[in-house]
């Protein structure tokens, strides 16, 4: 293949994405954990023979996209390409080499064609369990967080390492499900490899690096063209977020010059002795994600979308902690990186930025259900989506991560918890010319005869989702057990009959609420999204009696 014309590039590119979509499909359908199959807490990616990321499954968690290219490099440093053989599968869950916490297993398989590596396929998913203190923020050192796997060969020339499986069996809760998911990731990478080879055969392509050159450079050009529209300069922002013990400060300085963004997070506070520290791989991923959303949301993700963005953070800070800082709940803080960057650029990209979202609430539940079966599952619930210029925030929509909530009927059967209510919270969306999305109230009761341990991992209980450019904040999140307010990052035991009530935060509003159209306010009142009182007092609109 000599020169690739622009028409062929589009065809090849779409084909590579469809391959990753098919890998995701395989993973979802063969997985045992609800995190994967109901919540899509996963990602599947293809790399070329030089280890450059080319395509990613459409339904994925954004952070994994940002971390995977670095993870592959760590793996190849440990096992250089010339030492790899067909049938090898390499894994790690090291927080600093992988995705920032040990729950995510990174699984990689080299793809061989005629004895040569032509690409790599990677599959990442959140395991049902990894031992230690379970999925929570309570650990004070990484040692308490479970089984940490350096870069290892899970499968060597087709032979599964019984030693590694034994380690899993001895260290994790729900071992069969966890091993099932580990192997599901491995077979997903095989599917990806097979499909890449079929693609290369069909088009007579010996080396996808040439295609990679074009895809990556076109993506990079597109993102840099957008960045050039921002006046060169330094744009800063700082926010406060509740930690486990005290307040956490996050700060960023976004330097824009010549179509590149250098984002420095060094102004953030020091790492803390709770499992909410964010390894810099995750910080980097979330910062790249924010820039991508602002500049080129329509372009499929690949290495070209991350190269124009450079991320730095002071070593030992909460956004670049060092060993042995615990990191299990790193997303609890890490998710704030995206709104932090949006806030910094609000003045120069008012048409693109989004007001703060109520964000995701993760509640890890462990114990036994009515039938005595072991339970280790995450209840995901969303706050409201932040408003944007021209668009009200959607109710109960995740941001920036993209887990999917589990249906009530599936959750009840799985855990023997009864969901007593799941309803929107009126007036929870931040007022604005464009209103923030509504949060929700969820009431859960443990109706299993066994106690259930719940570990909460969420924020927005002290510092609300902020509005933007005149918009007002959304309502705070609140979690209570048997009527008593509890810490959003604590760990509690629900005895039979105990009730947990969660109020998910509303999204922030965008623009001055007084500018909101009368029709929009009246429609909100009619739908019960906004009370008559709020319509009068905040929006200055008196609904007809």
């Amino acid at each position, binding site marked *: 293949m000599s020169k690739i*014309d*622009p*028409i062929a590039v*589009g*065809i090849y590119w*779409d*084909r590579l994405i*469809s391959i990753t*979509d*098919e890998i995701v499909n*395989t993973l979802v*359908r*063969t997985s*045992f954990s609800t995190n994967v*199959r109901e919540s*899509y807490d996963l990602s599947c990616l293809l790399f070329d023979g030089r280890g450059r990321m080319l395509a990613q499954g*459409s339904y*994925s968690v954004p952070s994994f996209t940002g971390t995977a290219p670095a993870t592959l490099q760590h793996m190849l440093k440990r096992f250089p390409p010339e030492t790899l053989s067909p049938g090898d599968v390499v894994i790690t869950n090291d927080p600093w080499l992988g995705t920032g916490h040990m729950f995510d297993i990174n699984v990689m398989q080299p793809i061989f064609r005629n004895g040569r590596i032509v690409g790599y396929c990677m599959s990442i998913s959140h395991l049902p369990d990894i031992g230690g203190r379970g999925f929570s923020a309570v650990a004070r050192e990484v040692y308490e967080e479970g089984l940490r796997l350096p870069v290892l060969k899970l499968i060597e020339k087709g032979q599964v390492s019984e030693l590694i499986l034994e380690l899993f069996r001895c260290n994790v809760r729900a071992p*069969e*499900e966890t091993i099932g998911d580990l192997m599901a990731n491995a077979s997903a990478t095989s599917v990806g490899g097979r*499909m890449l080879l079929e693609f290369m055969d069909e088009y007579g392509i010996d080396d996808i690096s040439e295609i990679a050159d074009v895809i990556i450079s*076109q*993506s990079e050009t597109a993102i840099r063209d957008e960045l050039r529209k921002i006046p060169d300069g330094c744009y800063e922002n700082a926010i406060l977020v509740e930690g486990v013990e005290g307040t956490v400060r996050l700060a960023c300085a976004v330097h824009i010059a010549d179509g590149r963004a250098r984002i420095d997070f060094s102004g953030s506070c020091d790492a803390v002795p709770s499992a909410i520290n964010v390894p810099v791989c995750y910080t980097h991923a979330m910062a790249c994600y924010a820039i991508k*959303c602002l500049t080129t*949301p*329509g*372009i499929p*993700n690949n290495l070209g979308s991350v190269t124009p963005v450079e991320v730095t953070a002071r070593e030992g800070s909460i956004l670049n902690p060092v060993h042995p800082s615990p990191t299990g709940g790193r997303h609890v803080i890490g998710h704030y990186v995206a709104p932090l960057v949006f806030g910094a650029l609000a003045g120069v990209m008012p048409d693109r930025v*989004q007001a703060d979202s109520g964000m995701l609430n993760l509640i890890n539940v462990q114990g036994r259900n*009515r039938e005595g079966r072991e339970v280790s599952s995450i209840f*995901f*619930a969303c706050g409201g989506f932040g408003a*944007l210029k*021209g668009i009200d925030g*959607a109710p*109960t*929509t*995740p*941001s920036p991560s*993209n*887990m*999917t*909530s589990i*249906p*009530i*009927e*599936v959750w*009840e*059967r799985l855990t*023997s918890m*009864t969901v007593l*209510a*799941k*309803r*929107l919270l009126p007036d929870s969306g931040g007022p604005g010319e464009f209103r923030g999305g509504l949060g*929700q109230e969820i*009431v859960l009761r443990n*109706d299993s005869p066994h106690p259930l341990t719940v570990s909460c991992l969420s924020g927005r209980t002290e510092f609300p989702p902020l509005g933007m450019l005149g918009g007002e904040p959304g309502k705070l999140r609140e979690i209570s057990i048997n009527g008593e307010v509890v810490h959003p990052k604590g760990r509690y035991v629900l005895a039979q009959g105990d009730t947990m009530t969660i109020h998910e935060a509303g999204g922030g509003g965008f623009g001055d609420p007084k500018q909101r159209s009368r029709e929009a306010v009246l429609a909100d009142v*009619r739908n019960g*999204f906004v009370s008559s009182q709020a319509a009068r007092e905040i929006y200055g609109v008196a609904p007809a009696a």
Partner: protein
Amino acid sequence: MTYRIGVDIGGTFTDLALFDDAAGTAITHKLLTSPDEPSRSVLAGVVAIAQSAGVQMGEVSAIAHGTTLVTNAVIERRGVPTALVTTEGFSDVLDIALERRYDLFDMRIAFPRPMVPRDQRLEVCERVRDDGTVVTVPEREALEAGLAELIATRGIQAVAVCFLNSYANPANERLVAGWIRERFPDLYVSLSSTVFPYPREYERWTTTCMNAYVQPIVDRYLARLEDGLGELGFTGKFLVMSSSGGTLASSIAREFPIRLLESGPAAGALMSAHVGKVLDERNILAFDMGGTTAKGCIIRGGTPIKRYEMEVARVHEFKGGSGLPAKIPVIDMIEIGSGGGSLAGTDERGTLAMGPRSAGADPGPACYGRGGQRATLSDANLLLGYLGAGSFLGGKMALDEDAAGRAISSQVADPLGVDLVEAAWGMHEVINEDVARAFRVHASERGIDYRRSSMVVFGGSGPLHGVRVARKLKIPKVICPAGAGVMSAFGLLSSPPAFEVVRSRQIAIDRLAPSDLAEICAELEAEASGVLVAGGVARDAIRIRRRLDMRYSGQGYEVEVSLPDEDPQSLRDALPQLFDEAYAAIFGMTLPGRPIEILNWKIEAYGPLAATHETYRVLQEPEGTSVLKRNRKAYFPEAGGFVDCPVYDRYALASGDSVVGPALIEERESTCVLGPGDLLTVDPFMNLVIEIR
């Protein structure tokens, strides 16, 4: 003498076919759809086709009808004011929805408006546990008062009753439905436990709300049609096509109108399966491409694949996830935003993209000369010589090559820096690749190796692209059937009466006694057969298909297992092996020793086909006297570019004739493009059978 008529209403045309069962012949008819009152075009078409066949209405034994009424009513929100009656604490399930973004990076995505507005929802204090235990029985008084008020203030005409866990026990829903029917006999009532008793409340409830929302409209429409046909003297059976490829008695269609979504395309897929059966091709890819979209369907062992969920009314650039889920048995169709009117452009990446936006019929592609300025697929196909400027729609509509050239130059060739022909070829090829990709992804999601299948192509643009698409998919044979222009109307006449009942009942197979299997099957079979018997099918002519959704205990996704046609009692011990085979076929592995469970039971009853002949000969006059109409320059890159290509009249070809490509075979609604070396033969049924070489 028996005659049967199939009528398929599409957005632009209403297609009809009349079968003469004694002679084994068919005639076809097409007329414009009257959008304001579609029943008018059905009645007008029936009169016209009967007249041209010289048939009295009294001699017509059956009329089968496919309609887009339900789809359009949902998309355009033209249903009736509908109330949702639901479990206390959960009336917002429709707004809360799936709590998922269907696009990772686009923060401006839109979500569909819920089927029932928030102020038309009524909560009832009731509760059923996940295992089916009734915890709280609803109270009658509050319910009736609440509904009375909604009727007074919102003009409610239909009610969807949707309770949590009702799939496990419908008692509370039924109780409430009884009260509503007694107190408000004019209301239409849909129950989530009847419409589709599956777990996952958002999808089940949305489906039930849709059913309620369109029910009065469908009820009145079908009544009007039946009355109108009666007045014309029709006394035969009136059947309605369902989404799953069987016909329903109109009484059932009125109860479950949601089962009529996309019934026309389902008929086309079914017809493809039928064509395949006649030619002894059991594995088929059906490919139908029209003006705005293309549809595909995979047929295995003579039967189209089915699924139990589709998405309606997408609100954000046709994106998956931006529509409303409908849980019903449907023929598993691929929908691709590619058609003759697909607009060309460059995307954010700077590469060529086609569709999903379409120029529609008016103004249409630039070459239509009706003021359309945008470059479309049809413009490219005209420049490449595949379409003839003077032979489109049988020569009734002249195409403007200059306009097509101008549009493609300015919108595709210049921005991409390629010449006009490269640009047109690129547009043609991007569509081929889009369609091939859609088939590929669809097949792999279902774990199907399609490569030894044959492809059946139809629709206005299907035969233009079918051979190229087939080549990409390594499909060796393409069939362009007789009557391809009205395939769906043919399909309506080739569908058996059928009804499928689906139940969610979770049982581990090691806890399943052989008699349990037989008992559960028998219960569902009685229900499904009863529907057919009520529609006039003789009980002893009814056959049963049994399918189970099974999985390894702890997994969240099921694999469908077809049970062999034996006494269910004897199948208990064969279940693990049947499951392992199905699982391995999709995922290439099994997990020996892991417990297996049954989730869903799908029982379909179907009756005999009315057809007396395997195929019906289409009566159609050739255009002139010679088979070879003319020569035209057409583009074939493997032959070095434009070649002087023969153009044949399909209606003048005779059984046994053969043609070697490059060649173009023109018929009124379409042109079949044969690549260099491809061999076409006309079979005894007048199908064009193309071997790809």
